[in-house]
């Protein structure tokens, strides 16, 4: 898309100019160069949430490998970056010393990072280079839990995500919560900044995590979770803080994506056993561990990997006729909600990579320009202003966020359409137009032309409010952008 590359190019150009202007200050140059390079790297997505929200588990599920350590107790103690690379490597960056390489150890198929050295409390972050196609478009950042009882860890995460001084290191955030707790809202609010694009609800997705445990782990827990997520989506407060809420059963997704043949066999075995016995064993985790149809280590393993609800669901599915590992695994992944999350991530983050990166870069530049102002950089300030005011992408973001914040009111029937056309559900043309994935170019063009004429009518209607007219102008521009892309 030419408009997008246009924005990227403009931002890169202004960054380079800034580097030239500040060439006599090596620190500033290094800082700016780092941010310029960052524009060519994959999008940085941080996974945040309260203690035990299931952050590492979700990361494993997204990557499809057990590369982040998980445990019943609190376990992630340092901010850990997972990025794609040719060969595996683990590096610990220390606060006040040169970084050091760590040995790569695997235990029971899971990657272990040993942070037990004397330098452990000085770790700034750990970077894991890991060859994986799932990390190619996004660098995932695992963070220690907020609200942790070890306050130091909590503070570290809060610092990382919304440092007062530096612009955030992450371009986007997946925020995990088990319920809508006031602490979650507080955190999201603190993350919401009044910065350049004035539009952070746009780079945050909330995940209703551990969805399989809702309602005491009944069979319909995941349905229930979907209903709750829909209610949260409509919640005014939350709408202003994130794009959407997706329910995900992280543990189930992780286990399903890495399901082994032996595990499948155990499920089949369970279904073949006397039903009453199995039902009794599935009543509680303790009973299942004691179930004499399985070896103790077998049942323990299954519980650890799938969780109680996962085991119940898998047994039911096998009973319903999902009798080959491939199909069972796919069905479990589907039910876990991981598929929906990937789609949402794709629509909200991957398709907007360029825009989100440009935003991060401009934020960084803004920090430099306001902290080290010089007479000759005045023109740079103007240039940054011009990009922010002029780029249609930012106008879209601004409008979208004021629609979501409720500061700009549209009638209910046009609100949903406006959000969709502005890319609120995803930036792809067919998503914007509300068409299926398989819509032909002709259909798309017609839909776009329809939308243009509809919003032009609203713009020209003398009874329309000023806000409506402003919004219409931006939306028409978005539709024209879609049309231009279709012509290409």
């Amino acid at each position: 898309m030419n408009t997008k590359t246009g924005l990227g190019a403009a931002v890169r150009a202004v960054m380079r100019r800034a580097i030239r202007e500040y060439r006599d200050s090596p620190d500033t140059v290094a800082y700016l160069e780092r941010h310029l390079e960052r524009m060519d790297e994959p999008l940085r997505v941080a996974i945040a949430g309260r203690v035990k929200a299931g952050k590492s588990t979700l990361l494993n599920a997204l990557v499809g490998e057990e590369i982040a350590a998980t445990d019943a107790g609190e376990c992630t103690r340092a901010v850990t970056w997972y990025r794609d690379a040719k060969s595996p490597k683990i590096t610990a960056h220390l606060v006040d010393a040169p970084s050091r390489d760590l040995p790569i150890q695997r235990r029971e198929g899971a990657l272990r990072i040993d942070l037990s050295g004397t330098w452990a409390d000085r770790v700034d972050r750990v970077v894991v280079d890991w060859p994986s196609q799932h990390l190619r478009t996004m660098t995932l950042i695992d963070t220690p839990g907020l609200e942790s009882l070890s306050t130091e860890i909590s503070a570290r995460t809060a610092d990382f995500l919304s440092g007062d001084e530096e612009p955030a290191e992450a371009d986007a955030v997946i925020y995990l919560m088990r319920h809508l707790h006031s602490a979650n809202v507080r955190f999201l609010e603190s993350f919401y900044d009044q910065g350049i694009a004035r539009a952070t609800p746009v780079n945050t997705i909330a995940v209703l995590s551990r969805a399989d445990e809702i309602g005491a782990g009944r069979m319909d827990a995941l349905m229930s979770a979907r209903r709750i997520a829909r209610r949260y989506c409509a919640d005014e407060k939350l709408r202003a803080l994130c794009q959407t809420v997706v329910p995900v059963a992280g543990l189930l997704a992780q286990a399903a994506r890495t399901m082994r043949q032996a595990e499948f066999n155990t499920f089949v075995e369970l279904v073949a056993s006397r039903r009453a016995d199995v039902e009794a064993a599935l009543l509680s985790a303790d009973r299942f561990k004691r179930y004499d149809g399985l070896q103790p280590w077998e049942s323990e393993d299954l519980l650890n990997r799938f969780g109680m609800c996962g085991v119940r669901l898998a047994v039911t599915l096998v009973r319903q006729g999902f009798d080959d590992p491939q199909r069972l695994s796919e069905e479990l992944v589907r039910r876990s909600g991981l598929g929906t999350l990937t789609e949402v991530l794709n629509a909200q983050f991957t398709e907007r990579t360029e825009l989100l990166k440009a935003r991060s870069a401009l934020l960084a530049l803004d920090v430099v320009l306001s902290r080290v102002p010089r007479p000759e950089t005045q023109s740079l300030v103007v240039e940054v202003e011009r990009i922010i005011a002029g780029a249609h992408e930012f106008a879209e973001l601004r409008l979208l966020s004021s629609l979501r914040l409720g500061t700009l009111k549209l009638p209910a029937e046009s609100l949903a359409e406006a959000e969709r056309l502005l890319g609120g559900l995803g930036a792809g043309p067919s998503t914007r137009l509300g068409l299926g994935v398989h819509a032909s170019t002709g259909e798309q063009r017609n839909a776009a032309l329809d939308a243009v004429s509809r919003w032009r009518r609203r713009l020209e209607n003398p009874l329309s409010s000023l806000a409506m007219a402003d919004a219409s102008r931006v939306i028409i521009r978005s539709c024209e952008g879609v049309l231009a892309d279709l012509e290409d």
Partner: protein
Amino acid sequence: MSVSAAIEVVDVAFQAAVAYGRADFGDRLRQTRCRLTEDGVRVLVVGEFKQGKSHLVNALINASVCPVDDDIATCVPTVVRFAEEPSAMLVRTTTGEAPAEGKAVPVDRIADYVCDPANRQGASHAEVGVPRTLLAGGLILVDTPGVAGLASLHGAATLAALPLADAVVFVSDAGSEYTAAEIEFLTHAAQVCPNIVCALTKTDLHPHWRRIADLDRAHLADAGLDADVVPVSSTLRMHAVRTNDHMLNTESGFPVLIGHLRDRIGGEAGQLACRSAAHDVLTITEQLTATMRAQLSAYQGGGASDGLIRELECAQLRADRLRQRSSRWQQTLSDGIADLISDVEYDLRDRMRQIGRDAEREIDEADPAAVEDRFAAWLQQQVSGAASANFVWAMDRAQWLAGQVAEHFAEDGGKVLPDLSDIDFMTMTGSIDAIELPRDEKLKLGNKLLLGMRGGYGGTLMFGMAGTLVGMALLNPLSIAAGLLLGGRTVRDERKRLMQRKQMEAKSAVRRHLDDVIFQLGKESRDMLREVQRRLRDHFTTQAEELQRSVNDSLQAAQNALRTNEEESRRAILDLKAELERIAALEEMARELTSSRELVAR
């Protein structure tokens, strides 16, 4: 020794007091008896929301009285107590002078009211009665709305309700260890209600609940909290009861929790009641004995012996000392209350001033109109949090003062502390009104045009006039451009001015609101402390009168003994000895009450 035994002892003491012509003891004993018979053991079930509090209550009593839902949380506290027939009642919030009113609702529809987030019925709490043996012993369970952080409204309400509770069951699920917020809540709770049990719910679902339980115990120990962690599974319990499966019931962990509630909490509360009853009885028997001993020794001394005269002097001395002390304890009380009132008021003002400062900072940072709702809610939370903290502190100080006053009576064995726990303060935190922020004044298009024209007109005129001097028309391109420029500026200035005015107005609204709050709360807290003072004064006056009476009796007896002949005095001695033995027996019974460990709820 059970509560019923305590009641028996109190009854005997009552008869004895009447028989010895000491009806003044009767009132106190009647109160003691009331406390023993009427007081249930109030157990508050608290915790963050969606941890399974309602489910736990249901599983405890094996009835679906508290609504359980995946999504919608309990919004109104539900009080579950014993009743012969199942019944449900919704109690409205008291507004101003109107007393609380109850409205009977069908038991099966209670969920509609309890889970209504808007609380359309304006209910303060719901009362449910169920015929269950567990509750028959006087156990009262209170299912509370989930606490979402200490600063939240529900959190403040729950904290305020804590001092009324005999025990607290803190609910957290086995899915994760305690968070910082939970430990903070527990620490606060432990200060006002030391009897805490931590229930770890949903153990059927989480295979690692043993690890979590250990971690939680460690966290509790780190925080210096003395509370047991009891792992339970409500689902298993419900299932076990349905299928009548004893093994499963044991696995659910509920027998342990019920045992805990019945023996430790119920028992402790019962024991406390017994102990205070025993204490009351013992004070009375002590005074009776003292009087009779005095009489006895007076008679035994016979005639106008030295011993008798010494006894008389001694009694007179005691009476004098008591009179002196009575002025001293009154001094302590009135000084203490005056200090307390000024300290509490200062504390309240200080807290409000801090909130005011924070609020002004917030207002400076944002457009007040844009954040109006959130700001109002935030302010309300802060204010109610501060108010309940202030109250808890005031209660602490009042108890301490009561102890100080009681010290004056320690010498005579009359150190009995009054019961202050039922002073009504729930109205206090409930009566804080929401703030009313000034109406939003936006720069309307019409206004803007008018303003712009005003500025623009001036500009046009100015430059136009200047232009006419150099021979140009009044309306020339230059003057029009100047007009537009100045007009635009006027609109911008006006917008900025409006914003500043909005901020100023919001600030003064906050200040007004806080003034109102201080005024209203200050009045209420003064009233409350006056009530405390009245209560303490009455309590200690009665006590002083009782002591005075005992001393006077001994004085009287000594004087009487001087005047009696030998035959009479021998009979009197026999009588007195028999009476003393009877009182000694009563004393023995009362002592047994305090020493006995084995306690079963009635």
